[in-house]
């Protein structure tokens, strides 16, 4: 039992990391194109959780159809948010800070909208998984988090395929180094941005479903996006690979600090690590490992 503790804590850390990773990838994807931290990602997560709940309870369907609805719903929602909130600013070539501020405003607006509509109530998913945790040799593995890990891996694989093997992917990568030159070359930037938001929203949809299943559904559910934000900064803003690696690092770091030093200091350490990276290694983990980031070379 005592020997297992370290192993259990590593599992706990990786499991927490997979929650962060799925959120962080969607977050980093938008950053890589539009160069701003899109906090409305959290509200897409939250709204997808409500959508999945409504769908699975009303139509009495299982996990996979609900997942599909959340993916499509989350993607559509993110595109709508982009069209209403961000496109007008892009069209006017407004400063990046406006996009950032609008994203926070949208996330607050939607959170309070849901509170006003449904109150602070908690809504509960009917059980979509047979068991919520596996226990193997005295170790506990949370199934929902494992599913999030699986979903992150699959989503990342699809994402890499799209980015490197399809025309729209090449356009997205071109846009991620410079948003305006591809436009001159005849690439439809609005389409590239919409596709990017759709993919990001689809990832948020997956997160929303799984978070809703494990944490219940309430208006502040999107708050975990703050952790994804830390992970994307540590990962190297805009780098997908960096965001994933940093998410697992953050999950492990938080878990180990909590386990061996005490939970009271954990957030302090996370933010301290973020500050240290920004001061001494702003390219983040991606920079350390030589992963492509394509964004931080751009000076403000």
């Amino acid at each position, binding site marked *: 039992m005592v020997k297992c503790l370290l192993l259990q804590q590593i599992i706990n850390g990786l499991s927490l990391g997979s929650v962060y990773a799925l959120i962080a990838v969607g977050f980093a994807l938008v950053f890589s194109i539009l160069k701003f931290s899109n906090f409305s990602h959290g509200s897409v997560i939250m709204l997808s959780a409500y959508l999945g709940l409504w769908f699975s309870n009303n139509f009495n369907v299982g996990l996979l159809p609900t997942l599909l609805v959340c993916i499509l719903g989350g993607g559509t929602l993110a595109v709508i948010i982009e069209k209403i909130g961000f496109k007008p600013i892009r069209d006017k070539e407004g400063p990046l800070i406006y996009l950032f501020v609008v994203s926070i405003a949208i996330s607050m607006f939607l959170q309070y909208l849901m509170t006003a509509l449904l109150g602070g109530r*908690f809504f509960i998913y009917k059980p979509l998984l047979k068991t919520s945790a596996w226990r193997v040799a005295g170790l506990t593995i949370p199934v929902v988090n494992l599913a999030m890990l699986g979903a992150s891996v699959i989503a990342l694989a699809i994402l890499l395929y799209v980015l490197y093997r399809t025309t729209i992917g090449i356009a997205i990568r071109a846009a991620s180094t410079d948003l305006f030159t591809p436009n001159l070359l005849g690439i439809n930037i609005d389409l590239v941005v919409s596709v990017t938001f759709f993919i990001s929203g689809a990832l948020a949809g997956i997160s929303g479903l799984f978070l809703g299943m494990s944490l219940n559904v309430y208006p502040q559910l999107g708050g975990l996006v703050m952790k994804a934000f830390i992970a994307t900064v540590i990962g190297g803003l805009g780098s997908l690979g960096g965001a994933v690696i940093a998410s697992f690092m953050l999950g492990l770091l938080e*878990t*180990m600090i909590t386990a061996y030093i005490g939970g009271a200091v954990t957030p302090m350490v996370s933010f301290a690590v973020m500050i240290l990276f920004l001061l001494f290694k702003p390219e983040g983990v991606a920079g350390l490992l030589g992963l492509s980031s394509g964004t931080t070379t751009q000076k403000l």
Partner: protein
Amino acid sequence: MKKSLLAVFLVVFLLGSLPVFAAEPIKIGVIVDLSASTALWGQSQARGVEMAVEKYNEAGGLLGRPIELKVYDFKLDVQEGINAYQRLANQDKVSVVIGAPVSNLNLALAPIADQLKVPIVGEASDARTTSKTPTEPWPYMFASQLTCVDYGEAAASYAIYELGAANLAVINNKGNAWADEIAEAFVKYAEAHGAKIVAREAFNWGDTDFRSQLSNIQRRNPDAILVPEYLQEASQITRQAREMGIDVVILGPNSFTPPMVELIGDAANNVYFVNNVAFDLPAVKEFTEAYVEKYGTDPTVNAFFGHDNTVIALEAIRRANSADPKAIRDELEKTENVQGLIFNYTIDPVTHRTDGFIPTVIKIEDGEYITVGLYEPVRQ
């Protein structure tokens, strides 16, 4: 004949209602969380207040004046709560404020209420929200319910003397004054009564994953674990503990009241919690029915306290025969035998809290809430 009867009726009706509706209303402030993580409690409390005020208004108001509510949402943000109180005192000029069940806010409001001099009748359980020192109250702060120390001691005593627990563990949010006070009192009582605290784990606001702390607790193999947390955190901790195979007794405060079972189902079994309401009281049952009929959802315990705190405040206004906050404060201090839903309230002028409030222990078994009974901690 009919017409003249109608005329007489109208005159009587107008005369009877004139003093009520022509008079300046008595304004009562309410500070609750309607949009953050304790919004469920806040909404329930606000409705409890509303139902009490409706009862008085239907009976012709108070001092011949109607009662008007000013409700502010403080979003579980202490600064927002302070702004709300200042607005209620300076702009809305309310006579008394019904406060939120959040200790952090009331700790911050206590010295401010001392300056703005509008009394707050609340239900925060941190004793420091009403006591400046153990022998001196904050003059403008009152609370009807148990203190954190009462909760912590009752939980520890019950675990040690009724459940035979020798090794105890605690997990709580270090940033939540209420949770930390309960944890402190629990640890102090347990250690003074021969039990051992084998693990003491902490987390922070916004945390949703408690597996790291729970792994540490699991390794120490305690007989019972205290989880003195608000609804969302308490439900997640309990659920994750059960997932990890931690099947021992979980002890808690009143946050384990409904909808806890609805949220986490079987994971809530083998929970014993200290509550401030005995659900089987006839007045509580009757009020619950009226609440469900009016709002279509079940009340949380905060609805009962919202109602009772309002009654305590309004009765003080009646005795003071004035809407002046200072006069109301003086009368609040003299509150004696005011009948609420939960209790017959007498305020102790030294602690500014209900005298002799005895906690109730409730057990969750097979998804049912079973009232074990009133329980006073063993004193040695």
